[in-house]
């Protein structure tokens, strides 16, 4: 392919990937009359009214806080539990290690719809309906397979000699894990944490089923059920979409190398 052909193709790929979000961003900045008028594509006036409306009129900030708590809580819990298990799988002699990893992989293939009704009954019975803790526990269970697979791979990369040296120096397995393995695998921990955070931030089906009010609803649920009294408030929906995407977008742009590494490791191992 010629240079120009390649350049054009690359530009098209970039434009195709960027355009829908860009259009949402443009819509969110247009005053109402301009939203329903095409042409022109670009706004003649830019307004922040839609952002002002969502941050004041609806419980948007509450939903954003809920999402932040759920995604952070899930990330902490999944990485902590996942790191402990991955350490055992990578550095201790676990019997039936392959079987355990295969089981973990099988669990990651369960469709969410096939667990939502039993979990709903259990959560109801425990009185946890419409609470953030119900979401955190559910998400942790579903993020764990990914965390265990990724972290097992990252811990494998730390040479066994280093681990044994720590053991010979008198560390218990847990001390060797905490003081040697964890610091040496910090980049892997960050990669895993970012992936788990993004997946939890974006989750919808459980959040929709287990919550009932703004007390525990997350952003995706709020955006899916966006209230419109008479007309669909396109500008406000667009503003809400942009605001809900901003955190994960910043993570994706800032850590794209790590994310790609994590995604490929997760898939290639599988």
């Amino acid at each position, binding site marked *: 392919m010629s240079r120009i052909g390649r350049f054009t193709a690359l530009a098209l790929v970039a434009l195709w990937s960027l355009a829908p*979000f860009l259009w949402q961003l443009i819509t969110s900045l247009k005053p109402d009359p301009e939203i329903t008028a095409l042409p022109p594509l670009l706004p003649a006036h830019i307004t922040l009214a839609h952002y002002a409306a969502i941050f004041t009129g609806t419980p948007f900030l509450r939903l954003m806080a809920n999402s932040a708590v759920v995604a952070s809580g899930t990330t902490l819990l999944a990485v902590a539990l996942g790191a402990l298990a991955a350490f055992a799988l990578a550095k201790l002699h676990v019997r039936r290690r392959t079987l355990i990893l295969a089981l973990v992989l099988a669990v990651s293939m369960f469709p969410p719809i096939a667990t939502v009704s039993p979990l709903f009954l259990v959560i109801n019975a425990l009185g946890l309906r419409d609470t953030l803790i119900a979401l955190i526990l559910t998400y942790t269970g579903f993020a*764990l397979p990914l965390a265990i697979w990724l972290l097992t791979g990252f811990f494998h990369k730390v040479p066994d000699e280093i681990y044994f040296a720590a053991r010979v120096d008198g560390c218990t397995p847990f001390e060797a894990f905490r003081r040697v393995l964890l610091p040496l695998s910090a980049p892997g921990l960050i990669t895993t944490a970012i992936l788990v955070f993004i997946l939890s931030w974006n989750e919808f089906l459980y959040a929709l089923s287990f919550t009932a009010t703004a007390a525990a609803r997350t952003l995706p649920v709020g*955006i899916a059920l966006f209230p419109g009294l008479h007309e669909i408030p396109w500008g406000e929906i667009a503003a809400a979409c942009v605001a809900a995407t901003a955190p994960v977008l910043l993570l994706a742009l800032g850590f794209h190398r790590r994310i790609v590494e994590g995604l490929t490791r997760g898939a290639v191992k*599988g």
Partner: protein
Amino acid sequence: MTSPSRQAGRSAPFLAPAGVMLAAVTLFPVIYILWLSLEQRSPVLGVTQFVGAANYLRLLGDARFWNALANTTYFTTLSVALELALGLAMALLLRRAFPGRALVYAVVLIPWAVPTVVTARMWEWMYNADYGVINYLLGAQINWLGSPAWAMHAAILMDVWKSTPFVALLLLAGLQNIPAELYHAASVDGATRWTTFRRVTLPLLMPLILVVLILRTIDAFRVFDAIYVLTGGGPANSTETLSIYAYKVLFQTLEFGYGSTLAVTVLACIALATAVYARLLRGRTA
């Protein structure tokens, strides 16, 4: 050093927390749903009754179930095929180094990172028949989401947008693992680009292609958020997938027994597809 049982005892405390979590949140529900699928259960009416295979027999005569199964299969087949073809093309395009490649990588990751619900809202707005930018750019008056013929394809296009980058980035990693000497040897032998692609690239990439196919098939077959927010399964159930139908029976009709049976069919189809791919994969690597 130590006996096997002591070794196992030492690893147990590390494995137990994750094991308990997985058992409680994933394994237990999957076993429980198999039981639920054999019950007639309505929380509103306070009815809970064991009905054996009745729900499964009901599937056979349920036209809406067969419609959802057909929709899900169509959606999965078409979107995964398109994603694989476009993803491979994108990976080949991104393989060679060029100035600004890191930036393109980051941009390509955007569709993957955007929450699915937001993706659906963005495309709903672009597809809008009156004010949508797609009709404007095409100079057309297509009722994308309002006509049964278009709606499913609109949903597929949205999924292709969201998932192709994931496929491309995975295949790109595979391409970069192919030794350069092989390409060198091929060019010394005077192979054309097409021959090189068919005889070198494709065979070496095949195991990874199968892995990507498994991941995408599983993910596409259980599709819920994207279509639920885009069309709600409409118009006239033309985009209703198995997960959406199951969700509606569970949480709108509040039939927990039959809804669970529908959910079990999603699980069964995914298990079946995974088994088929796993056989193919084993045949390749053996």
